[in-house]
């Protein structure tokens, strides 16, 4: 049965490789938004260090949001989503594959470039490591929760704005614990607790969100 998950991941990755502009634009959005803050705030090192985790996380949320509307919309428009719904497997598994593929092309690149961007904020090595780890662990939850919003707004006009209104409030816990992990490390409390909670959110999101999305997709396909 997990075969279907791998088939969907392979297909979505191949499609993403044929359409690299999407990946690159979300990544550049992240890089530019994060780089604007040090330029705007000026060379006040203490302030930058304090703001860094929040800024990087908010930019990561927004960059993830950018690619969400297309998660199901393309498949819906060309009829592939119908065929996926008719595959002899539960639709939730198909969506699990799509969520994992979405993370691989949207969340993972953000995490990989985070250490470089963090240098602009004069973060210590420890803080950089924890921040990168937090983004790596937390972004799958963003893809999972986002999939529910993308499925609910599928086929709606102006769905993009509705999608942000639905999904961004649900991202708040990830934002709090993601940014909190770095603060806790810097203040010497240790960020392990925050990272564990992030991991728990990610596991819950990857486990449950695809099934909720599948239910919403079935309504969209009626």
């Amino acid at each position: 049965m997990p075969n279907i998950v791998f088939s969907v991941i392979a297909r979505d990755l191949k499609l993403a490789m044929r359409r690299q502009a999407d990946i690159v634009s979300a990544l550049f959005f992240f890089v530019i938004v994060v780089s604007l803050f040090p330029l705007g705030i000026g060379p006040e090192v203490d302030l930058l260090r304090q703001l860094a985790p929040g800024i990087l996380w908010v930019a990561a949320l927004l960059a993830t949001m950018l690619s969400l509307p297309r998660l199901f919309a393309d498949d819906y428009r060309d009829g592939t989503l119908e065929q996926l719904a008719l595959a002899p497997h539960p639709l939730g598994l198909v969506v699990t594959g799509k969520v994992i593929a979405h993370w691989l092309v949207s969340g993972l690149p953000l995490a990989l470039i985070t250490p470089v961007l963090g240098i602009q904020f004069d973060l210590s090595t420890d803080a950089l490591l924890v921040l990168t780890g937090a983004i790596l662990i937390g972004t799958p939850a963003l893809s999972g929760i986002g999939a529910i919003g993308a499925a609910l707004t599928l086929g709606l006009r102006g769905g993009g704005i509705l999608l942000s209104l639905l999904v961004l409030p649900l991202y708040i816990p990830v934002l709090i614990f993601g940014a909190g992990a770095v603060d806790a490390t810097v203040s010497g409390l240790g960020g392990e607790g925050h990272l564990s909670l992030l991991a728990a959110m990610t596991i819950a999101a990857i486990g449950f969100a695809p099934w909720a999305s599948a239910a919403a997709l079935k309504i969209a396909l009626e």
Partner: protein
Amino acid sequence: MLEADNLECVRGERRLFSGLGFKLDAGELLYLQGRNGAGKTSLLRMLIGLLPPETGEIRWHGKPIRRQADDYHAALCYLGHLNAIKEELTPLENLLAAARLAGEALSVDDAIDALEQVGLAGREDLACKYLSQGQKRRVALARLVIDRRPLWILDEPFVALDVAAVDWLAGIISGHLQRGGMAVMTTHQLVAIPAGTVRELRIG
């Protein structure tokens, strides 16, 4: 064996049809007819299980399809209005991906054979966005060449095809019926299917 019993379809405020039923055995073809907006596509979407009927029941081998969604979908091949092909992928990749998602083993050679049959020889490695409408439709139809699932549900399969391709597709469908398959389809062009028992159902 596909059975439908007392189906009712309501879209928005309008009742499209009610009390509709039929029975389809191996080797039989059901032609759905009716004017535009009569509910042909809605009925097909009920039959594939994407649209729950207001009342009534659809049974596959005696069991309601909602109770055996995965088994039923494993026996079902649906071709809708939309081609369900990816513009960025080549015809060959599309065909292989569709087979994989349907859980069927398909070798590259068989896929190339199927594409040759639909007249796309030499275009296997060209991204589908460079193909014409009719050629895209042929990529979608290539799935039928290799498909051995017993129930085919086809929504307007002859649209956008030239005369030779219509004859070819009629041959593919009758081959399917001869193998003991079943088919349900809607069409506005009456095309003679040379084999199998043809039944007609008029909606609206």
